[in-house]
């Protein structure tokens, strides 16, 4: 039987239940038993002193790449789940662009089995929209749902055919699955490797205009209107996409969106300042300051529902090459909280909204359990130190890969303890790397 935990004296921030104040949280039998201002510590309980700390629901990440099966040299489900809990994430949605693609029950079951064996974060598989993510034939959504998928995506590439996208939205309705989409119009992208603007011009790198994302978001919103399917826009990066989602929501359409910490914190000028560092190469690319401002506003006003990391581990083989040739993506699970906390300090986001976008926001977008500390729910909890300073040393991270633009940077904010289903799965300073 799991031990009883008595998390006392922390500031409990649980936007889903409207709680924000010093409370004590009792965890028993794997569930949140009680949250109250004054409680007697049960004799059999392990006390966790959370004074000066934040106690929040465990974070839920709608967008990670765990690379297993197929590219275990970059990350495995176990190392990815370890990185997740180290960052305060108790649940992650694993994108299907593995090798093979997760477009059938056998891959989904393998992911779930490996996640269960790791016993760390909850891993929710995302199935493919199309077979092999080739954009040609619908995958078997019934089988994917039955085997445990929570959403559908061809992430890594857009669904180029509007006709297939229409059918996917229609067909998915029967299963209540949202489509989480990677939006880029590939002909506008061309051979682009970073955002098109003054920085790409200076660096002589091919640019990707913001419109490449905008036109696809607008197309898919039109298809939502046609079909009534649920659309979730992954890694929103442009002003135009934020505006389109805001308008769609105002019209009552079932459209949600997520934004990554790096698209909230960095711009194309950071690519230039890095001197072609491939740790700044991602897709969508880091955008202009104006786009970053729009994404921050979109997150603050609820247009964007969730912060998702798009954790994309790559080895040195893919990254220690010319910028043009490098793989897209950065790791993100272990740095998401401090990077986003910086937005709070900059006045771009309230503390409550930050926690909401990491917990109940994503839970609602995909209809997942968790995201709250209400009594009776499985006890997925993060204990966070909002003032702890630390320097990002890739060699000391839990992810198998080292591709982070925050290498060597001093960040403020750290996850101290992560609890999944009432069990402590990460304890800063005690969990071995």
């Amino acid at each position, binding site marked *: 039987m799991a031990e009883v935990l008595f998390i006392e004296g922390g500031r409990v921030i649980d936007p889903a239940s409207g709680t924000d104040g010093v409370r004590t949280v009792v965890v028993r039998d794997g569930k949140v038993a009680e949250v109250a201002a004054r409680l007697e510590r049960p004799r059999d309980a392990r006390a966790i002193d959370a004074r000066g700390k934040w106690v929040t629901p465990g974070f839920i990440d709608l967008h990670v790449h765990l690379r297993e099966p197929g590219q275990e040299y970059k990350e495995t489900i176990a190392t990815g789940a370890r990185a997740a809990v180290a960052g305060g994430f108790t649940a992650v949605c694993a994108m299907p662009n593995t090798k093979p693609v997760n477009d059938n029950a056998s891959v989904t079951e393998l992911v779930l089995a490996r996640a269960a064996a790791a016993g760390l974060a909850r891993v929710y598989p995302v199935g493919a929209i199309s077979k092999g993510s080739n954009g040609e034939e619908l995958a078997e959504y019934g089988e994917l749902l039955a085997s445990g998928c929570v959403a559908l995506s061809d992430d890594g590439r857009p669904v180029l055919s509007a006709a297939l996208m229409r059918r996917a939205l229609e067909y998915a309705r029967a299963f209540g699955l949202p489509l989480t989409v990677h939006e880029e119009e590939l002909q506008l992208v061309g051979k682009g490797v970073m955002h098109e603007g003054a920085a790409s*011009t200076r660096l002589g790198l091919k640019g990707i205009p913001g419109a490449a994302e905008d036109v696809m978001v607008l197309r898919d919103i039109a298809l939502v209107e046609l079909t009534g399917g649920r659309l979730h826009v992954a890694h929103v990066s442009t002003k135009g996409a934020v505006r389109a989602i805001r308008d769609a929501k105002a019209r009552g359409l079932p459209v949600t969106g997520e934004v990554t910490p790096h698209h909230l914190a960095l711009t194309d000028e950071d690519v230039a300042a890095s001197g072609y560092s491939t740790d700044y190469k991602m897709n969508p690319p880091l955008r202009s300051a104006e786009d970053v401002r729009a994404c921050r506003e979109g997150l603050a006003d609820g247009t964007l529902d969730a912060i998702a990391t798009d954790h994309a581990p790559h080895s040195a083989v893919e990254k*220690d090459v010319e910028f043009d040739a490098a793989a897209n993506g950065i790791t993100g699970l272990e740095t998401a909280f401090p990077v986003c906390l910086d937005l709070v300090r900059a006045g771009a986001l309230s503390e409550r909204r930050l926690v909401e976008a990491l917990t109940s926001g994503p839970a609602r977008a995909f209809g997942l359990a968790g995201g709250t500390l209400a009594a009776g729910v499985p006890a997925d909890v993060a204990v966070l130190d909002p003032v702890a300073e630390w320097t990002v040393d890739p060699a000391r991270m839990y992810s198998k890969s080292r591709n982070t633009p925050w290498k060597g940077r001093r960040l403020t904010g750290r996850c101290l303890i992560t609890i999944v289903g009432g069990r402590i799965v990460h304890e800063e300073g005690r969990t071995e790397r």
Partner: protein
Amino acid sequence: MIGRHKHCISLAEYSREEILEVLDLAVSMKEVLQRPIKKVPSLRGKSVVNLFFEASTRTRSSFEIAAKVLSADALNWTASASSVTKGETLVDTARNLEAMRPDVLVIRHSAGGAPRLVAEHVGCSVVSAGDGAHEHPSQGLLDCFTLREKLGTLEGKTIAIVGDISHSRVARSDLHAMTKLGARVRLCGPPTMIPAGIEALGATVRTQLREAVEGADAVVMLRIQHERIGDPLIPGTREYSKLWGLNAKKAAEWLRPECVILHPGPINRGVELSPEVADGPQSVILDQVQNGVAVRMAILYLLAGGNPADAGEAKA
């Protein structure tokens, strides 16, 4: 060293003084080239490796001659005959060449930033001979050298750069160097060939050739890169040459008589320049080629740490 720089990768990072340091030294280097015996011992015992991942005759020969005039050993290395075709990475290639202890690596590569990546992994000096659409610093310096020679100074002068600015590393290096030396730069081309935000680098942008070249002290005509016309940037070379090409009639009507015409070469005769303009009295294209050797001598000398005892001979 050039100023505080160990490498010559980007003129965006060079100060006015650092640019002038190269140009001033190139004056004495050019004098060496005029001698009957074009050889000084300044870089005796030093070695320069030309590492070319893209086809080039002019630039590679220019660096090779520059090294040889200074008595450095020059090795030419081309990607088609290399391990790159066997899958070796750029960093590994550079490290292997570095292990052979060259003093300077001159690198041309199709990817912007490639020379910088190499510089991060080797101990010797790195000179960019052009990286993607980023920069071609020695070309920028030789263009400024030629303009100083012809105009006396760049201070207060107006220079038009015409053509496919989007894909031109020459345009970027020219722009950085010329504006630092006090010139006003007008960029001109079809709107599809003008990259986003280029004004932020200190240029004005025109889309009409006449507006760009009228009153200019110099015009740099760029090569239309046929290999990139696959991108639908223009309808074809026919309309381009009518609207943005320079022929004798336009030159006579729109250019000041003392305006000089530059071109980094190779020229597409009849497209950006008609033959009578390319070979006409205002053209300084062949001066650019000779000045290129002098400027590259200066760059190699400064980076390879020429022997001070021999420097007098080079600078004499």
